[in-house]
């Protein structure tokens, strides 16, 4: 059965005020178009979870969608500070819950695999463990040593962008695979956005590349260029100059609001956004082809 709907319908149907949202992707394939749609639909009191909140959550926090962030690194990757989230935290206006990368991802792993917690070896840096009561320690029943544990993270909704998906939601990813699979399996509801909607036969021709099976997916949305200013491996490049520009834009609430007015509220959907970026940006983000050698699964 097809799950193809528009992104606007998917956000309207599957994201509710107060939800814990995990927009997946470690630098790669961050679903910016979904974040923008959430802003346009004025969702409120969301708990925004991501290892690296990135500009997408900086924008959603600036737009007033969030009451809390859960993260392991709040920087603008490669540039510096994530200014808006940082300022809100420093001003005491935004709740936060913080982990290291491994413990954040371990929370998702526990959520995705149905375990009550995930163990990790101790790191001996205990200040964050003291500051965040979700960190606990338990005794390893086999050796008597201590291990650090974190509870499952089970988002209400995960949003995952992929290169290609069929209408039922069988989704294939290549390039950096970060925590997309874990986020999808951990979540109650899953929205998949994709550069391309393909026939089921394409998916079946390369089953090792399928990261998310359709039967855990609720909505499939065809959203080319969904990830800009992040990127989609093999489709378009990361817009590093926008990441640098955001460092300036995010210096004042006025310039952030002006950005949101022009590029989010003033835009109907991702197609309009992409057109508005213009030919120069399209050209700059073009990627030359570098296909993999094909593999032969054999006919049995």
């Amino acid at each position, binding site marked *: 059965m097809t799950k193809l709907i528009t992104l606007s319908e998917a956000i309207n149907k599957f994201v509710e005020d107060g939800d814990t949202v995990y927009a997946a992707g470690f630098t790669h394939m961050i679903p910016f178009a979904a974040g923008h749609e959430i802003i346009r639909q004025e969702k409120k009191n969301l708990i925004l979870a991501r290892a690296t909140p990135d500009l997408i959550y900086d924008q959603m926090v600036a737009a007033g969608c969030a009451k809390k962030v859960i993260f392991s690194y709040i920087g603008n990757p490669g540039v510096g500070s994530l200014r808006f989230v*940082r300022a809100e935290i420093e001003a005491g206006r935004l709740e936060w819950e913080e982990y290291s990368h491994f413990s954040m991802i371990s929370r998702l792993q526990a959520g995705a695999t149905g375990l009550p917690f995930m163990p990790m070896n101790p790191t001996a840096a205990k200040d964050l463990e003291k500051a965040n009561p979700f960190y606990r320690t338990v005794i390893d029943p086999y050796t008597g040593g201590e291990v650090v544990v974190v509870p499952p993270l089970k988002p209400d909704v995960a949003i995952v962008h992929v290169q290609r998906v069929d209408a039922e939601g069988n989704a294939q990813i290549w390039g950096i695979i970060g925590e997309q699979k874990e986020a999808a399996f951990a979540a109650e509801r899953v929205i998949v956005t994709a550069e391309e909607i393909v026939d089921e036969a394409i998916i079946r021709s390369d089953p090792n590349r399928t990261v998310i099976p359709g039967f855990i997916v609720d909505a499939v949305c065809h959203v080319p260029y969904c990830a800009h200013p992040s990127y989609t491996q093999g489709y378009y490049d990361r817009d590093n100059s926008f990441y640098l520009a955001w460092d300036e834009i995010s210096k004042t609430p006025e310039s952030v609001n002006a950005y949101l007015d022009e590029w989010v509220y003033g835009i109907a959907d991702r197609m309009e956004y992409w057109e508005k970026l213009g030919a120069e940006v399209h050209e700059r983000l073009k990627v030359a082809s570098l296909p993999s050698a094909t593999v032969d699964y054999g006919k049995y």
Partner: protein
Amino acid sequence: MNEITYTSSELLTINASRLLRDGDVVFVGVGLPNLACNLARRTHAPNLVMIYEAGVIGAQPARLPLSIGDPTLVSGALSVCSMYDIFAFYLQRGNVDVGFLGGAQIDRFGNINATVIGEYDHPKVRLPGSGGSMEIAAWANRCYIITPHQKRRFPEKVHFRTSAGYLSGRSEREAARLHGAGPLAVVTDLGVMEPDETGELVLTALHPGASEEQARENTGWDLKVASNLKTTDPLTAVELGILRNELDPERIYLKGGE
């Protein structure tokens, strides 16, 4: 002989690259460590295996990546895995030889603060946080810290211990039985500090032209100087040429200290 001029970023990067050994598996961070690793691969360590926390193993970046998850890291890499796998199979399992670390504050025992200045619950300055540094500092076999030498960066004690150096002394780290040996060197623009038998960072080398006095003035604790204080080898034209012409021609990272 003509005197070679260079920026402090170039000085840091080249000295960091010399710490890498051929065949090392290195967990690469963005910025100067990334340049240092790529420089080592083009000079004395052609078999360096570069791992990125985004889940890329054996990257051969064709261009300088701005972020740690740049697509150029993926194309031509040996392997790509999930974030859970990179931290569990590679780092926690003990398959990483070298980690590079930085941070807003580094204390006398090499503990790092990348989290907060002021109180945690009421931050005066909220920093980006751990990312992978908590695990890198604990589990990479050898860690190196790369940072400019400034008094505010080297307090006696960090406000928040984001990642472990030698804790309150080498014996405490040993008691914690971590896989990694801890920070083996702190490379600054003045010289190199290394832990003594108690885990305290002491000045063991100066770069050409830098003085003991400068190092002591720019350190927040009473910095001891090793009895066999060395001078680091001068930067070579080959190293500077690769950095400037091949790795960072637009001087995105190397302009620091000009």
